[in-house]
């Protein structure tokens, strides 16, 4: 089983940038299986790294350090398990999806399709590219980028459950786009175009074949025209009214200007061809910071509880002094 290919594909970027529809397109390829939103994998990579730190904390007396299991091997072995589980559940997934009234796409066109890789489109994974690469060192990432104004309009008109808006304010919408896109740009710089492939949403709509050919070449898969089929349908749309004006006076104009400028750059400039060791170190440091944060969380939580009790006591003392001073 361990000989299976472990080369998953993650579609990342801001929500409402076409991540879902692009994942539907890619999974029409005979070698790629669709995955629902895999938003547990990033936090799991951090948890696994925390546990590796715990198991190596005592040097030669720590279990993992004593048996010589480094954190790369540790996370990689869980990544392989996840890959095997996913690929071995293809039949269950297909039969479950067959019960849907209107399946949004075809899971598999024939049992002969190898489907030896899987694709997951989860915008939250934009924050976890470094950790996902630890679970799956050969994973590839597609950064799908869409004009920020369109994304904001779509976010403000998206009601996932039919009643409640996904995002409350225009400011929140801009913030969501900025943070995820900036994380993906960090990953582009850190790992280069052989690991992260930037794709414009507008190219997917207006030059789908060229965009898909380029994408499949990046993935190392032969071109398959059926990957364009899902684009004929309107999927997961937010139905923005034609007269919708998102402009909210409470939105920070500096943030809007920053987002607009970045969005324009992304529409006009190509992604960098080189990798940057500094950017990779930055992502690694951020990952380590999160690992340390969660490693210490339990202890810090208890300390915060103790601090509250001592502050409550001090406050009572100060109040008593204040009452005394007033009487004087």
């Amino acid at each position, binding site marked *: 089983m361990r000989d299976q290919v472990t080369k998953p594909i993650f579609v990342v970027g801001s929500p409402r940038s076409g991540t879902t529809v692009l994942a539907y397109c890619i999974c029409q390829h005979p070698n790629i299986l669709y*995955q*629902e939103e895999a938003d547990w994998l990033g936090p799991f990579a951090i948890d696994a790294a925390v*546990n590796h730190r715990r198991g190596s904390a005592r040097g030669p007396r720590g279990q993992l350090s004593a048996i010589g299991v480094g954190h790369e091997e540790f996370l990689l072995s869980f990544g392989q398990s996840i890959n095997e589980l996913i690929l071995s559940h293809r039949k269950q997934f297909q039969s479950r999806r067959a019960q849907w009234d209107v399946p949004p796409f075809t899971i598999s066109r024939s049992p002969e399709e190898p489907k030896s890789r899987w694709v997951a489109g989860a915008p939250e994974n934009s924050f976890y590219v470094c950790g996902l690469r630890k679970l799956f060192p050969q994973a590839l990432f597609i950064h799908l980028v869409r004009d920020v104004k369109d994304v904001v309009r779509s976010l403000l008109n998206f009601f996932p459950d039919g009643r409640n808006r996904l995002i409350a304010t225009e400011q929140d919408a801009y913030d969501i786009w900025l943070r995820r896109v900036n994380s993906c740009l960090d990953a582009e710089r850190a790992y280069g175009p052989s690991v992260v492939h930037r794709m414009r949403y507008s190219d997917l709509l207006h030059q789908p074949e060229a965009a898909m050919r380029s994408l499949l070449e990046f993935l190392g898969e032969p071109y398959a025209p059926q990957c364009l089929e899902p684009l004929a349908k309107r999927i997961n749309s937010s139905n923005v009214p034609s007269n919708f004006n998102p402009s909210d006076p409470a939105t920070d104009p500096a943030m809007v200007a920053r987002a607009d400028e970045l969005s324009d750059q992304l529409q006009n400039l190509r992604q960098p061809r080189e990798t940057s060791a500094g950017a990779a170190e930055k992502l690694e440091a951020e990952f380590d910071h999160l690992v340390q944060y969660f490693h210490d969380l*339990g202890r810090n939580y208890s300390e915060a509880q103790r601090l509250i009790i001592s502050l409550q006591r001090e406050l009572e003392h100060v109040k008593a002094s*204040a009452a005394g001073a007033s009487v004087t």
Partner: protein
Amino acid sequence: MQAPINKPIFVVGSPRSGTSILTWCLGHHPNLFPVPESNWMGSFAVNVAIAHQVGAARGDHSILSAMEIRNDELFAAFGQSINDLILRHRKDLETKRETRSKELKIDGRWLEATSTLAGPKERWVDGTPEYSFYIYGLRKLFPDALFIHIIRDVRTVVRSMLNFHRVTGVQLAPNEQEAYSYWLRTVSACLEAERAYGPNVVHRIRYADLIDNAELAMRSLFAFLKEPYTAKCLEPLALRINSSEVPPDFKSDNPPTNPAIIEEACQLSNNIEKSPQPSASSSGAVAEMEAAFEKRAQYIATLDMDKSRLEVVVCSYQAEQSRLESAIAELQRQFDDLSDRLTQIPGTNR
């Protein structure tokens, strides 16, 4: 290729009950090898539970539920990964133990007996007392794992815990009350596992029997582990290891311990000495352990959010404190001002 055997053995119970020596004894068996104490698999099991909750939260729109990857399956797959990692690194462990045997205080004969040259060594033994609290989660990771609950008289354990730091510099319990309390918690957790899973999964062994009736105790233990008996496993008992060297006249000078805790612990310790472990498993006890595990997962899953909430509370208290302190300073200033003015009024003598 045949999948490697995945039947680890966990020696659980209170610290200072003989978990280390028993782990080394078992490691002298040709099919078993001892791994250093670990403290990560319990919390890892909790993290896996959280990961499954997140990965299955949205039904058909979440990866794990959409693929029908059940909770048990995810746990077992990760347990298999851990088992594979440990088995794959047996040689590295041996090499490290050989090169650091002096620092780690490992007898040369033990290195030989626990090496892969001494047998196939297809199962590993972990003697981490802390795992007494994580038996449910460890069983999820390793459904075929077996547990040995070693139990020692509470008074002896408490004396040993309180003296341990003198020999090793490691403080196991800051005072007598904490030592009694820790014994109670670990032993109660193991007793619950005994009730839940029965004697086919958890085997109770008395420390006194290991010392006084070693061969008999070890034969019974190997029958439980389904491994043939070997007298070699008794060899480590001839050496005194990891002792806390309690002076004969030792008396705790700690602050007074709550007598109710001492009484509860001594009563439980006496009861265990007299009564055998339950002969059947109990689905009710399993349900209780499952509920406790899920509660812990829930607690850990929300800890980050709860910590942020606590930080907000801390900030508001600090702001309130600073506001009150300013108000006091202002009152004091007004008071001083009034006092000054009073002294300036002719005929006022303050």
